[in-house]
């Protein structure tokens, strides 16, 4: 048991040591996508607890978060290809367009 714990600790420490070297831009995107995913999960739990009454609002809120998560991850993959160079900024245009479309759809549907 203690052995497993040690292994986990080792993985965590090596991960954090490696992650420190990640460019800040990627870290920000990671944080945002984790936030989006957590919000989606929270909404799901909330809907389970209070019922699905404004179902359209639930769907809009939930899929807004899930969509944000997916789009942010895809932006991160593109940015990672550039290896932290300033040229990564040109990928942001497509991301912004996709996010705006997502928000318009979500606001329309949220009622």
């Amino acid at each position, binding site marked *: 048991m203690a052995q497993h714990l040690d292994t986990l600790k080792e993985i965590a420490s090596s991960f954090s040591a490696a992650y420190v070297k990640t*460019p*800040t*831009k990627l870290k*920000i*995107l990671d944080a*945002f996508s984790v*936030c*989006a995913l957590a*919000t*989606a999960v*929270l*909404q799901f739990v*909330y809907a389970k607890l*209070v*019922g699905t*009454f*404004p179902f359209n*609002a*639930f769907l*809009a*809120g*939930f899929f*807004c*978060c899930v969509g*944000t998560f997916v789009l*942010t991850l895809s932006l991160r993959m593109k940015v990672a290809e550039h290896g*932290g160079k*300033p040229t990564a*900024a040109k990928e*942001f245009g497509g991301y*912004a367009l996709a*996010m705006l479309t997502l*928000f318009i759809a*979500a*606001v329309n549907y*949220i*009622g």
Partner: protein
Amino acid sequence: MARLAAALAAAMLLAGVALAAEQQKVLVLLDSPSLESSHSAFLAGLRSRGYALEVRPIDDKSLQLKSWDEWLYDKLVILGSSKALGGAIDAAQVVQFVDEGRDVLLAVDSDVSEELRSLAQDLGVDIDSRGNAVIDHFGYDSHVGAQDHAAVLADNFVKSAAVLPKALSTPVLFRGIGLSVAAESETAFLALAGSPTAYCGKPGAAMTDAKLAGPELGLVALVQMRNNARVAVAGSLHMFSDAAFQAEATARNDRVLGRASNEAFCTAISKWAFQEQGVLRASQLSHRVLAGAHPGAVKPERYRVNDDVEFSVVIQECADGGCKPYTAEDVQVELVMLDPYIRTSLKHDGQGRFATQVKVPDVYGVFKWVLEYRRLGYSFIELTETVPIRPFKHNEYERFIVQAYPYYASCASMMAGFLAVGAFFLYTKA
């Protein structure tokens, strides 16, 4: 809407017929001139009820029922026997007369002509074979039927206050031919049926299986047509005669039952046939929204799904020239779009107003209110009123629901997060 207007117009026409001050013209066709004197009490009864009678022989060459597409008479009485219809009148024209909402009283006897038989058949009543008579070896009248047992005492009256408002205490003296109506008939019924021991056959001949016997053997049949025209078919001329009106009913073994009910019965069925009894009149059909898109709207163009609405109609029962509020617990209304989505009973307030409150279904489409009321002895009521049901408009849905605040917040936080991340992403050098 047009159908409703037509139905109301028809209902008012029927009521108007009963109330009209001007005399209604009745054509009386007699098989032989002697019937005018032998049936004088019945004819006088019709005259005293305000009808203008025109008495003609049935085979008169100059008979006319309509002239240039206009009916010359409101009612038709045929006291017929072996002679066929004469002049311009034939069975098809009498059927057309009924089809256009006019009433016919047809009485025949055992000697019935083929044309009158087929006329009765067209109107929904089958008359037994020519020459047969109603025979009852137990329930015969011992004054006039002792010989052949073919003058019977019948007291199997229809149980309908619309036809016979007052119960008859003595039987009807009947000498004539038997009738039958199809068991599945929606329009025809027997006003007077045979006793359990009565049958229809040849007098004096032995018979082992009678086609018509017992309660299925009709003596007098009434027909309430779908257009509310009425027809009475009696298998006996004799029952309308002065002699029968005066007769003492005398059962087997000379047991005296008292004056036969012929006069009361014949008056009742002629009143029924001529729309003086058992006429229902529906009016003031209305419906309104109690709660919903437009509360209080009377006869709105359309409802919204889930509206609370009230349906109401006034039904009156007209008899003997006057109308009084109808009372019944079994009047139903349906809200129909191909299938009835709602079927509910109407409650009345004792003043003739029948109403019910319902929540319209959560389904949109072209619905209609349908009130169909068919009861034995009463005229039919058929009302329809189309009211489409629409869904919510886009701006009629509830907004800013407290329960949904977390969802709004999540969406807002995603937008704020996007702006913050975007600003950082574009303006940071690292």
